[in-house]
């Protein structure tokens, strides 16, 4: 499977959790340990190694918080 | 320059095209129909020109908002009830500082009213029927030649101040035929429309045409900027004509076609040895307050003659500040004042004033 990587622009996240519902490998979670500049728990990834770079999370994010990279064969 | 015999409504259209107007958005309503009809014939013949019959006057004024925001010279026209529908749009256009020309060939009211001439839209035009603190120049031509001249100038004035300009004529101005010529205007030095939405070409920040400002401090700052603009208009754009005022005892105040009737009344009274004169506002806003404040010492009374139940009389009273009695005589509903009745009213007033 292709390797992927995601980046979260934490302070833009509004903690809506939509991205956590679409990850095929279930690694997108809310970071309950942190609060961002807006006072929300920002979304994050629990295990980056599993990321396949499908961009589902970024696609459903209403606020363009997520940037996705994928390994180019 | 040879003169052409033209119907007022058509002359207004021709003048707009002469002034470079290429876009007209209108809607049928008597007594201004010949204007959109003229534009429907002429504008498609012009490179890039467009005529659109909108689904309503509300849509038409908002098409103006779009066209003007895109940087074009554009015009719409209507009549009293249709002008009422446009008031919201005019307030937005003033708020967003967009130049355009709006013609009102007014008719009797209120409500559906009638289709005969009237001047009962004075308050609507000079106070503004939309929301918020805004103003716009209101030109009131008395002849079709003056209407042509004022429409041509209105486009420059609109661009200069980035503001809507209203040209108001009662039904007669729209329906009469008179010889007109299209003179070369003295050029105003007009600002570049760098604010227009012509596309960023990805080379500049987006231009935004907008009247919303949710932050009250920002909205107040915007209002104060508009007020400065309106002050400049009041100083530079007020216009009127004095007719035999210098030694007059009774001074009429009348505009548009009513002023032509009143001019004859002044002449008749003079023939009877009664010293009458007339101040004719050419801009209804700004109102020629100074002209009224500076009436000669001979003046004993003012008489506003209007095709309405009395609207401009308020501005006359404001201007004279109680120094002289100010009366109103008017017909409404489309009835046109006749000299005999005006003369009778004048004598009644003078009789009463020693």
């Amino acid at each position, binding site marked *: 499977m292709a390797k992927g990587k995601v980046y979260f622009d934490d302070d833009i996240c509004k903690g809506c959790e939509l991205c956590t519902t679409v990850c095929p490998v279930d690694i997108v979670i809310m970071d309950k340990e942190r609060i961002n500049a807006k006072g929300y728990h920002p979304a994050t990834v629990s295990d980056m190694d599993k990321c396949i770079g499908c*961009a589902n999370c970024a*696609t459903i994010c209403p606020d363009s918080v997520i940037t996705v990279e994928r390994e180019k064969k | 320059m040879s003169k052409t015999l033209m119907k007022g409504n058509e002359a207004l259209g021709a003048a707009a095209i002469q002034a470079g107007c290429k876009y007209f958005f209108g809607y049928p309503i008597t007594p201004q129909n010949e204007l959109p009809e003229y534009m429907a014939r002429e504008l498609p013949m012009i490179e890039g020109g467009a005529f659109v019959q909108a689904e309503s006057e509300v849509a038409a004024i908002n098409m103006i908002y779009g066209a003007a925001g895109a940087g074009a010279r554009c015009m719409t026209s209507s009549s009293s009830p249709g002008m009422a529908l446009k008031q919201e749009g005019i307030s937005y256009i003033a708020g967003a500082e967009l130049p355009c020309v709006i013609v009102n060939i007014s008719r009797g009211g209120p409500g559906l009213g009638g289709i005969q001439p009237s001047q009962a839209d004075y308050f609507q035009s000079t106070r503004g029927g939309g929301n918020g603190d805004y103003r716009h120049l209101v030109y009131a031509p008395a002849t079709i030649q003056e209407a042509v001249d004022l429409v041509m100038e209105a486009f420059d004035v609109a661009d200069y101040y980035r503001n809507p300009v209203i040209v108001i004529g009662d039904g007669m101005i729209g329906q009469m035929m008179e010889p007109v010529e299209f003179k070369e205007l003295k050029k105003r030095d007009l600002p570049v429309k760098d604010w227009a939405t012509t596309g960023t070409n990805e080379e500049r920040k987006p231009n935004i045409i907008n*009247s919303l400002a949710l932050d009250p401090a920002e909205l107040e700052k915007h209002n104060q900027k508009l007020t400065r603009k309106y002050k400049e208009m009041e100083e530079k754009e007020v216009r009127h004509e004095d007719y035999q005022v210098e030694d007059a005892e009774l001074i009429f105040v009348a505009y548009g076609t009513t002023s032509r009737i009143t001019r004859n009344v002044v002449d008749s009274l003079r023939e009877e040895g009664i010293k009458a004169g007339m101040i004719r506002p050419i801009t209804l806003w700004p109102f020629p307050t100074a002209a009224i404040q500076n009436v000669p010492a001979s003046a004993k009374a003012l008489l506003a003659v209007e095709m309405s139940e009395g609207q401009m009389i308020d501005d006359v009273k404001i201007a004279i500040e109680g120094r002289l009695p100010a009366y109103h005589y008017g017909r409404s509903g489309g009835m046109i004042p006749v000299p005999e009745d005006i003369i009778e009213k004048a004598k009644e007033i003078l009789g009463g004033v020693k």
Partner: protein
Amino acid sequence: MMQVVYEKTKGLTDKQTHYCPGCTHGVIHKLVGEVLVELGVLGKTVGVAPVGCSVLAYDYFNCDMHEAAHGRAPAVATGIKRVLPDHTVFTYQGDGDLASIGTAEIIHAAHRGEKFTTIFVNNAIYGMTGGQMAPTTLIGQKATTSPYGRDQATTGMPLKVSEMLATIDGAAFVERVSVHDVPNIRKAKKAIKKAFQVQIEGTGFGIVEILSTCPTNWGITPVDSLTWLKENMIPYYPLGNFRTPEEVK
């Protein structure tokens, strides 16, 4: 070697939106921005924002914008397009703006075949003003002005805008899509691109009705709103294409 496969579109400005958390207005903004960039027309686009939640859209799209009076965006867009026929013009409107106060404007823009594109966001409620009933509010759905649930007897049936506009010949492209899940978001983007292509090719008026969520005024979480949309709105507002010019099919 890692390659960026998804990033914020140049079609949107850097301004963060005011939309509520999870409101899919944000998703739709991204789709429109991405399409404008992919079609290479961003620099010659003029958009018209409505009155409603997306009233501030003029700060979010990275192109020249107009803010229109409530319901009047299609008339404003008509004026712009007639002046700039070779530019790409779109309106972005909510259901209160388009399906209530602005019905005459949208019907007549379609009727005249005005060559601009309308992005119509249907979230079955008035969001900005705090949750009132809209013409698209579903029967039985509670809103602040249908507190006992919308009652057909006194407020009629919810308005099916796409079906209505599909009866108008000037409407060259009419499609209803949704953004309640990733596959549908991708389909929505295709429809938006087709609608803009219909404009760019000069075929005529195009509208994409996009079912969208309103967690705040529906009173449910953003995630549950996606499900609510799927289970309640889609049955009444079936997705699909209602009109497409042959060549774009």
